[in-house]
């Protein structure tokens, strides 16, 4: 199950928390929710500390978010990313999509 929370949205920074599993079944919900919050922020930070798994649809959601951020000139940052999620992104060759900060660092 996906857990999604908008932590902060002050017009400059949009800060999200994603947990659980980001799968095909929740991908549309993720995109609708997050993209609706995007205005003219300069930075979008996604806390992935509780994200344990994602499939290709979940990965597609991140790609969509990255593309939207790019359009408004916002910087996308995925942080607290656990190793498994990083591995999944690496399998899909998405590990260089944006700034990814691992949970341990």
């Amino acid at each position, binding site marked *: 199950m996906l857990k999604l929370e908008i932590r902060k949205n002050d017009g400059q920074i949009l800060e999200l928390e994603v947990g659980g599993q980001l799968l095909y*079944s929740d991908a549309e919900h993720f995109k609708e929710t997050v993209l609706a919050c995007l205005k003219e922020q300069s930075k979008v930070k996604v806390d992935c500390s509780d994200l344990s798994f994602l499939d290709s*649809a979940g990965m597609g959601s991140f790609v969509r978010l990255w593309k939207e951020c790019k359009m408004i000139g916002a910087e996308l940052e995925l942080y607290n990313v656990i190793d498994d999620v990083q591995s999944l992104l690496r399998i899909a060759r998405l590990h260089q999509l944006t700034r990814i900060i691992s949970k341990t660092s």
Partner: protein
Amino acid sequence: MSSKKQAEDLDFDKLSQLEDRIIELEQKLNSERKLNEEKTAMMRKTIAETEDLAKHLQNTTLALIQERQIANARAEKEKLVNKWIEKINSSFDLNSLLKHATSELGRFFKSDRCGIVLIEGGHLLTHYETSTKDFNREDMIQNLDVDEFRSNKHFRKIFKTKSRIVLDEISEEGILLDGVKTFVGFFISIKKEAFDGFDRYHDTELEISANEIVGAFYFQQCSNKKSWQDKDLDLIQSIITPLSTAIEKTLLYRDARKRTEYAELLNSLTTQIRSSLNLSEILARTVNELGLAIKASRCFLYFDGYISDEYCEAGVHSIADTTRFLILDKFREDQSFQVISVDNLLSEENFSRLTAEEQEELLASKAVSALACPLHFQGIMQGWIVFHSYRRRQWTRDEKNFIEAAGSQVIVAMTQSRMYEKLNSYQEKLSRELKQAARVQTSLIGGDVFDVNIETSVFYKAHSNVSGDFYWVAELAPDKIGVLIGDVSGKGPAAALLTGYLLGEFNSAIANSALAWFPDKMISFLCQSILYQNSSSDFYATAWYGVMDLYEGKLRYTNAGHLNPYIIQNETVYKLDGDKDSGVPLGLINPKEIEEAYEAREIDFRRGDKMVLFTDGVLDQKMPDGSFVPKDWIYKILQNVKDRDVKDITYELNEKLNALSGTSPLTDDRLMISLEQVYFDIYDFAADDPKATSELLDKIVRDCLEQDMPANKQLNLRLGITEALTNAVRYGLKRNPYGKIRIGYCVKKGAFKMTIIDPGPGFNWQVYNYTFIDEVRFDNEGGRGIPLLLEIFDKVTWNFMGNHLGLFYYW
């Protein structure tokens, strides 16, 4: 007195008468006296004559006695001589003969020295001398040269005049006659064609023919002068002929023995060097055996400026590391392959032929005499066998012949060895390549079915390294197994190449089309391929190809001349199609020209059913009595093992076949395949339920970890299965939301297989342009599902419709 009495009685007349009577009587008396005197004189004469006669008789008797005494003495000598001749005739050894002759005769004639010298073809054959203790000069004469005898005027005279010389009083200097006061020499001549010890030549100076051995038998008196009696000289002269005969006999015997020895040595050497095919062993044996046989100081093999192997007599140093020149090459008269021999390398004439470096090398080698035999093969010089002698030595013709014969044996052995080594190296290379080919072929044949859907067991043994038998078991689609078995005519590399070609064609058909799903079409395709190939060869192949549909429980198959497999079904063993026509082998017909050239048949083949396929190497295996495996043998074996698992079936078949064939070698390639359908359960699954999916994933991962899957592989497996299930839901339930997704999976050690069937129209994989994850643009939101499946799973298959997915994951 009576006359006086008569005168007294008578007168004068009577006296006168008396007187007359007296006168008459006187006259008578005188006459008688005269007669008596005459008689006396005669008597005296007779006595004188008798005395003379007696004296004469006495003298005659004395003379007779003397003559008898002389005759007796002569007879005694002759007797001794005859006895001696008998003795020397019994000797077969030249040295003991000469020793005996010189010592016996020397002693008999009370000579201080007695000797014999024999010269053969300008060489000193032998010189033997015995002497009394006081006049022994053994040390001085042991190395005498033939020229000493040739140049000595007395010996020279004997040789030239071919007669004896008697010198009662001489005073000579020079080693031969120094201190000798009396010298007697007898000429010896032995003419015989058979002698072949040395290279002979006609000695024009001494007029000695090439076929002649000449010599002198001599007596020397040193202590005092000796006056030789003619009768002694004659006696000795009479001995010379039998002595010559005895010498001739020993020489013949010596030559025959030497030749026999050389023949034996040659045989022994030939046996020894021919018994090995190891070149270094041959060369080492050659120098050792020949060095010993020739009694050389050194024997070595010389090849292009270096010595490969060397034998050195005790006390002789090695020159292997220092030799650069074949010095004897300088003494080669032409470029022919003749043995070169030099008796005296250090003679002025010979030594001067060498360069300064060669001279230095020769002196360092300490060789005085040398012999070299060329080693040549098919007109090409290969090297030399060289013999060195530390002392002057005349190489005999027999030695040269022996070395020449030995050399030819050595070069044959060397050539054989080199050919063997070459062949060996070629064979090793070929064997290596064949083994590599066998490994490649083993990896080529087989297939990619991991024992998940079916149990398979294969026994495969090539008759040669590589085989003409082939098989392939492949997952054509999920739950569709293609089984191909066949046998290319012939064996070995050519047959193996054709199997490679056939399997290549087969695999390309599997990969690129749905052809492989239809056995008759596949067999026709392979037949067409091999027919094309046959334009340049005359090979053909038998093949049996079947497609097992595990989901439907069917087996569709087509046979092209191959042996029909056996089926084990419901406890029953039977031969598929019995003895029906098994079709035409591949490559013999053009299937396009013949309608329905190959026929596809179908039988039920469900869970638990087994099939045993094999090639003709099984049935053509010869028994020890030369017969073949009985026709119903496989059936009988299978009857006994039908309940066993497939591995046991294959094992038993092979073991029983081995037991049956006993010590008979493998007749042909042997290939046996046993298959059993062990299809797993397929059940409905709520793939659209995240909780159910999560539980399924947890269970699968747990099952795989229990089968030793590395922990770091679980994330990928999870992602792959998630993607597959998501696809089934997305596309399978899109138009049919109430349809059911069916899944099944199986985990074994090292492998996981999953089947996912959705009710949708199917994924058109036939036209899907296979995209791998690397090729997906990173800014694409979608399009990663299939690429991720291909990235994660080892094999991904679909059924024809594309709604039946098969996934394989190995670790």
